[in-house]
């Protein structure tokens, strides 16, 4: 699996994962794996009544993510590149927010078993942004079900992501500060990112594309 060039883009809902994943796949000639997101039949109910619909929503996502990433084993592992707009572990971040203790135990048991059967990304790109920036991006793109997302939820989710990736050691990680940039609008910023990921990366690198004064 080492030879498979498998990049995963991660970040809080609305930060711009999918946009970047699509750009990367086109640029690198990679197969694109997009999270099947809007198809979860529990999602609209979940945003209205989280307690009631949390476990069904989580299990649905878990299985959907698992099946999608499982299909990567069918890709020609030595000659193909893959770009995904999520990592499997993301599911657990949401589970920790959404589920109660009993549900979480059950969930973790399933998640552990599934995770061991999946390939690992050779590079993870974590798109980071301040909560206020993410809120603005969400309201701008205006997806119907996302209107039910509260600021507190995004704040909590954002902290979960930050915390998870601050401690992430499973492989090379590039943390990109996207407060000031939008990859769909600036080709130069995208070119700079390509240059950075073309270099071999071990461990973690924190990257701020725009010079931020301090």
């Amino acid at each position: 699996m080492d030879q498979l060039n498998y990049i995963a883009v991660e970040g809080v809902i609305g930060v711009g994962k999918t946009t970047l994943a699509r750009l990367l796949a086109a640029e690198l000639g990679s197969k694109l794996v997009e999270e099947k997101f809007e198809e979860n039949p529990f999602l609209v109910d979940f945003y209205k009544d989280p307690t009631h619909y949390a476990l069904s929503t989580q299990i649905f996502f878990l299985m959907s993510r698992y099946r999608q990433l499982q299909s990567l084993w069918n890709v020609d592992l030595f000659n193909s590149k893959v770009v995904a707009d999520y990592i499997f572990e993301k599911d657990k971040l949401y589970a920790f927010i959404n589920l109660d203790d009993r549900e979480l135990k059950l969930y973790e048991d399933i998640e552990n078993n599934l995770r061991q059967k999946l390939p690992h990304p050779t590079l993870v790109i974590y798109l980071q942004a301040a909560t206020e920036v993410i809120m603005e991006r969400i309201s701008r793109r205006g997806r119907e079900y996302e209107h039910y997302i509260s600021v507190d939820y995004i704040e909590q989710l954002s902290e979960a992501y930050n915390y998870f990736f601050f401690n992430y050691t499973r492989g090379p990680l590039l943390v990109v500060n996207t407060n000031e940039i939008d990859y769909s609008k600036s080709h130069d910023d995208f070119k700079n990112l390509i240059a950075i990921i073309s270099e071999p990366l071990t461990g973690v690198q924190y990257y701020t594309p725009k010079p931020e004064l301090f």
Partner: protein
Amino acid sequence: MIFIALGTNLGAKSDNLIRACFLLEKIGIIKQRSSVFLTRPWGGIEQPDYFNCVLAFETLLSPEDLLTHLKEIEAAIGRETGERWGPRKMDIDILIYNDKVLNSPNLTIPHPFLTSRDFYLKPLLEIAPDLIDPRDNTRLEEALQKLNEEGKTTILKKVEIAPWTS
């Protein structure tokens, strides 16, 4: 190797840690990060619990110049306060700077409280278990053991998976 400690107890704590890393990578390279520890505040003043961790860092800056930049980073993160988002706070300390021993009015290296604060020693030893105190060539591991034996500890736990889980 240079070791610096991050501590934050106000605002979105994990976000503060990552912001500090973004800014630190402008003046050097982060080689390694310790786990994050949840810590009781030190000094008996009533305030929220801290997230503490230690980074192994490489930079061409002198200790004095590094200190100047760290103060600027602290101030930059502390400044980022919108009304909705409340105050932020970040403390950044130089613990060890290679094997330098330095006593100037502005800066003492190793950090004067290095061997009396478990929230420095524990994460530090996690990423550099064999580290020696350049002042007296003793193993820092022993200093941590002593704090533990005397019950002078502030660490509540290592933070797992998500910041709010117990």
